């Protein structure tokens, strides 16, 4: 995104809203990306939080010679690597999964971004629909169990799951994601962009 450099420029000037925009755009996908390596979503969250904290603290001196996105994912990659290194099981893990450069990053980044899009789509589902989807997908309950827990018919569960999956499926196109980012960006920077 061309707007990334502008975003970074604003952040370096201490513009807090831009920092929030950066967080909103990238946080979930960075978490999912790190999680691909370390398989611990809570840990991934704290590692990615560190990256954002660092960016804000070092905003004045930060030199990013690549795209902001590449920089963020590179940082996430390094965090994951350091984390694994410091884990006691380091050796064992590396033997099992030769970590270093064996995994192709661009693919993983794309996958992480996709996961983030699907994740935000889950969050945007109507409340009832989301609840049913979460019980099914993450708590692995059967339709009949969900129906009795929520005191609804199995038919409703079937239908809501169909709706949920359809919505998630339509979020797969990457263009949609960029539109969301653009939307966020313009929304947050309107006063500054008017001058141009």
């Amino acid at each position: 995104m061309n707007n990334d450099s502008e975003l970074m420029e604003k952040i370096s000037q201490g513009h807090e809203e831009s920092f929030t925009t950066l967080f909103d755009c990238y946080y979930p996908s960075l978490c999912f990306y790190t999680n691909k390596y370390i398989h611990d979503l809570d840990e991934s969250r704290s590692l990615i939080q560190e990256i954002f904290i660092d960016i804000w603290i070092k905003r004045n001196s930060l030199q990013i010679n690549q795209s902001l996105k590449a920089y963020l994912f590179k940082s996430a990659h390094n965090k994951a690597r350091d984390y694994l290194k410091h884990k006691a099981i380091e050796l064992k893990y590396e033997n099992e999964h030769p970590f270093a450069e064996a995994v192709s990053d661009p693919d993983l980044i794309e996958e992480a971004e996709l996961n983030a899009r699907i994740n935000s789509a889950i969050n945007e589902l109507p409340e009832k629909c989301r609840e049913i989807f979460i019980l099914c997908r993450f708590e692995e309950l059967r339709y009949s169990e969900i129906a009795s827990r929520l005191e609804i018919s199995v038919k409703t569960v079937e239908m809501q799951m169909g709706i949920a999956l359809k919505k998630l499926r339509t979020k797969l196109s990457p263009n949609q994601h960029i539109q969301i980012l653009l939307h966020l960006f313009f929304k947050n920077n309107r006063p500054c962009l008017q001058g141009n």
Partner: protein
Amino acid sequence: MEQQLPDYEVQIAAFLSGNISSSEIKALQDWQNLSDENSQIFNAAVKAWKGSSSKLSKEEIEQDKLAINRSLIFQRAIKEERVKKRFRLLRMAAIFIGPALLAIGWYLGSTHLQTQPITWNTITAPRKHIAIFTLADGTEIWLNAGTTLSYPSVNLIDKREVKLNGEGYFKVTKDINKPFYVTTQNTTVRVLGTSFNIKAYAEEQQITTTLEEGSIDLTAPNGAKTPYLLHPGEQAIYKLNSGETTINKVDATRFSAWRNEKFLFKDADLKTILTELERLYDIKIHIVNPKLENLRFRGMFSYDQDLLDAFETLKRSVKLNYTIKDREVWLE
């Protein structure tokens, strides 16, 4: 709205979540084979299902955003504190110049005025900073964060003397006629000319004296063999509760690493490290999980690091969580 949903959407969801019968699977396969569009829809659904394998709820994302904000606010608080302290250090330096000049004045002038009652000047190194200064005789003294040192306002005839509460490194100018004494609350070190480190914080249960160069005599109460004569590279630890003194060979430079505003630890237990951090950052640390106390660490903190960096460093070598509120930290 539910009526508008085609049957295949319901079937695909049922298939992916494992809520489908084998006859329905067959029907779904037939549907897929009907057209490319159908199989594309199916594949996209599979991709979406797989991609939803881990989730972050809106609330969790908001929580994390808040966590970042809280850390940054805390960091800012520490930073402001540090700026304040820097000013204090400057002020302290300014205050010190007065007495130092006075001392030099006495030194150059007459010494017979010693009959006057001795008054003591006190200087303190602020937290997170070390203080460095030179006495009238050229002796250089480094004071670690939180240390207080007193020295006489007049020049004594037969000796030089300072009182230490905390940790100090001394590079004493040689003067055979006027031995240099460093007294702590319990021990006294007698020096002719040498470099050594003394750690004697009032709240700690021991006094550690480490000799880098030259030789010193150490007098401790109840010491049978007192005064102990230390050789370079030797360290004497005096235990307040037992009154015993032990002498060991050590790497002396490591014990004065704090002079470079660094805190080095090698095989140190968590308690020791936390005591240093409490002193450095003026905080109170609570260990919630007592098992942590016995863990041993090696590593380094720099005084200009933020408290969060310090905890993150610890966190990297051992699984622990910290909660920070006001000036208190809980570790578990």
